[in-house]
């Protein structure tokens, strides 16, 4: 039962959520005076402390739930509140823990930007929305925060709004996310109409209305309402559609590579670590709703996403786009984790991925920062994000190289890193799941293994080209790329530490010892373990990683490059599968044509009708005016003219001479007399 009194952990969580909002308001009010970002940084630091306190109080204990009455529509009362369970406090701490280094990093990275006061305001707004999302106790509040993070992301992608590419990118992100938001809203609507409540604990809790055990295809029987299995599938798919857009799943992933137009610090926080993972968090929250069909769809989509994105990452030249596709690919892994029912492992991968992917982006930001400075200093005509222009940066930026290497190893799933624990756990569980689901299901773990190999390849390609390869542009003159400043390196060092195994487990090679999984596993279903795989898969993955590293070294550092860049497969990867072109051809352009048609109809038919009516009215009024002028007025004027004419004639008789008057009178009398005489006669 929800509590109604604010205990200290609740208060801490509430303040963790509201502090960034206060910072947002304050920064927004101060406007250009808030350039240094102290307010935002103080707020997020306090949030981290509060979140940490809440975490220590709640983790491993019974969930705390508080509710207040929000509003009532008809008979349905809506509540607002906080739900602090293991998942929520974990995310709460994670978001703060990622956001704080990014804030610090931003001080140096965004220094001197003319719009930096907006930057701090947007960043605080995002933190508020994201923290609100993870502690929301009902789907409606979650949806509001879901939209708010999307909005903050939109603002930050278009932060440099004078660049056309940024404007196009944030428009694209917004529109693609709308498609997903419709799904989320539909899911909420279906649940509400079936059960009359949106409370997460009431719906999905241990004694919730929707406790569908793993693998059961029976309709859930609820006390207050029922839902048929068909609607259950539809609701599950609707929620998944919501996460497909937000977590950039194929084929709705197209917005994420373009979102790299935003500042790199934003990409690291929003588009790598937190917001895009919100979809995974949502799926974990509403997990009991998914039946077998939906889970299969999720697994398949995740696999396809992981593969497609890893493939597209192979031939990208923009350092941030490679990382963006890498993010999409890893989100696909998490989706598979959800789909095979091991959502605690998916969340674990979310956490480790948040650290190392954020670190990858921050390191890339440091490189771009250095390249940008070199470009401005020496008037070079290069794109600072293009890896073809880099090379040999290892000597210029040794610390950035170290952090990036750690993050890359974590991404590749190398032993002693956090990525090794989570990614190989996902792989192993995928095999275990496939063993239960028949022959065809083995395709999914096999594809994931291939994706894992591709991942190693593209990240080592990136490392080789940026840090080891022969310098291309930089070799010609004595250009020195400076190492990033202390404000940037400190957050990177912190995240590099978090990307290693010690904060998750004492046993670097065994994911079974991870405390984080033990915290979540009590609620999560488990698969029958296949012991040999736990050794075989990580060993093979590590071996593959080493092979790929060697291959990348041979191809890109030693110059034995064997691939024709004109090949179909190469171009398919470089042009991101021509998906953008496909969408442009089948959706955007027909839509534009339809809009133009509608515009034409609007102009010629609708406006034409109105203009026609106006013209008809004008003509009618013209006729009426003519009638008025010539007939009505004419009649009046005729009377006037007649009177005037008569007067004009008769005035001649008014001579003013008395004698003439008398003569006239006499004459008239005479006529009358004569008339009478003759009339009588």
């Amino acid at each position, binding site marked *: 039962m929800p509590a109604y009194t604010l205990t200290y952990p609740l208060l801490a969580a509430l303040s963790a959520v509201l502090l960034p909002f206060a910072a947002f308001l304050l920064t927004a009010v101060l406007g250009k005076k808030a350039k240094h970002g102290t307010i935002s940084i103080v707020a997020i630091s306090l949030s981290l402390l509060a979140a940490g306190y809440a975490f220590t109080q709640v983790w491993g204990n019974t969930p705390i739930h508080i509710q207040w009455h929000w509003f009532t529509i008809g008979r349905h009362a809506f509540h607002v509140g906080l739900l602090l369970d293991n998942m929520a406090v974990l995310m709460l701490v994670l978001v703060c823990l990622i956001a704080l280094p990014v804030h610090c990093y931003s001080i140096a990275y965004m220094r001197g930007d003319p719009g930096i006061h907006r930057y701090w305001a947007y960043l605080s707004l995002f933190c508020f929305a994201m923290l609100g999302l993870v502690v929301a106790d009902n789907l409606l509040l979650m949806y509001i925060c879901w939209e708010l993070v999307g909005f903050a992301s939109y603002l930050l992608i278009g932060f440099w709004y004078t660049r056309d590419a940024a404007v196009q990118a944030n428009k694209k992100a917004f529109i693609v996310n709308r498609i997903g938001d419709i799904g989320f809203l539909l899911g909420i609507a279906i649940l509400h109409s079936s059960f009359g409540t949106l409370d997460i604990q009431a719906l999905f809790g241990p004694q919730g209305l929707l406790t569908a055990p793993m693998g059961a295809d029976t309709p859930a029987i609820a006390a207050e309402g029922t839902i048929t299995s068909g609607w259950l599938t539809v609701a599950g798919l609707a929620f998944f559609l919501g996460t497909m857009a937000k977590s950039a799943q194929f084929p709705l992933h197209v917005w994420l590579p373009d979102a790299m137009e935003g500042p790199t610090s934003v990409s690291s926080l929003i588009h790598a670590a937190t917001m895009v993972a919100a979809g995974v968090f949502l799926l974990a929250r509403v997990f009991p709703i998914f039946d077998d069909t939906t889970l299969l769809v999720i697994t398949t989509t995740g696999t396809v996403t992981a593969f497609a994105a890893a493939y597209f990452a192979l031939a990208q030249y923009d350092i941030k786009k490679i990382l963006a596709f890498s993010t999409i690919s890893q989100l696909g892994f998490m989706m598979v984790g959800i789909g095979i029912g091991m959502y605690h492992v998916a969340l674990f991968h979310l956490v480790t991925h948040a650290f190392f992917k954020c670190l990858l982006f921050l390191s890339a930001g440091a490189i771009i920062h250095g390249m940008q400075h070199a470009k401005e200093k020496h008037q070079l005509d290069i794109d600072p994000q293009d890896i073809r222009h880099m090379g040999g940066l290892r000597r210029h930026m040794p610390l950035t190289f170290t952090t990036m290497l750690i993050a890359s190893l974590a991404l590749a799933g190398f032993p002693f890193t956090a990525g090794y624990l989570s990614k190989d756990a996902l792989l192993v569980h995928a095999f275990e799941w496939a063993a239960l689901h028949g022959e065809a299901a083995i395709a999914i773990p096999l594809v994931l293994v291939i994706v894992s190999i591709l991942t190693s390849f593209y990240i080592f390609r990136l490392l080789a080209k940026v840090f080891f390869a022969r310098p291309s542009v930089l070799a010609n003159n004595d250009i020195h790329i400076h190492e990033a400043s202390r404000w940037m390196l400190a957050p990177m060092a912190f995240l590099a530490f978090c990307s290693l195994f010690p904060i998750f487990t004492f046993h670097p090679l065994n994911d079974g010892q991870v405390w984080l999984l033990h915290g979540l596993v009590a609620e999560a279903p488990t698969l029958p373990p296949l012991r040999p795989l736990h050794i075989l898969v990580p060993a093979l993955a590590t071996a593959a990683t080493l092979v790929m590293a060697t291959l990348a070294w041979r191809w890109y550092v030693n110059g034995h490059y064997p691939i024709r860049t004109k090949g179909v497969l190469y171009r398919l990867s470089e042009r991101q599968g021509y998906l953008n072109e496909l969408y442009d051809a089948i959706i955007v352009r027909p839509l534009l044509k339809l809009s133009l048609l509608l515009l034409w109809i609007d102009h010629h038919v609708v406006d034409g009708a109105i203009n026609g009516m106006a013209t008809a009215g004008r003509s009618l009024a013209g006729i009426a005016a003519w009638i008025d002028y010539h007939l009505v007025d004419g009649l009046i004027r005729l009377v006037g003219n007649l009177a005037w004419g008569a007067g004009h004639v008769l*005035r001649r008789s*008014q*001579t*003013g*001479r*008395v*004698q003439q008057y*008398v*003569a006239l009178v*006499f004459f008239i009398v005479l006529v009358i007399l004569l008339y009478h005489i003759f009339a009588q006669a």
Partner: protein
Amino acid sequence: MITLTHFLVVGACLFSTGLYAVLSRRNALLVLVGIELMINAAIVNLVAFGRYDKSLYGGQVFALFAIVLAAAAVAVALAIILNVYKFYKSVNPEDISNLKD
């Protein structure tokens, strides 16, 4: 034998003379004289027809009444002429044409 017709002829002559004077004289006083002549023509007629009212002498009485009335009219008309003269320095009716439009 003097018959009614003689009287009426005399009256008509008098009236015509008066009318002529009224219409043609260039002097307001003579116009006034013309008016008096016309009144007197009427009085002659009254007296002449008064023969046929032997009991009450209505014609004679009415003649007397008309004479008095004429005298009063003359008084008023003379006053008007006097004022007109004061104003216009003329008694020619043709000069007094303020009523012309």
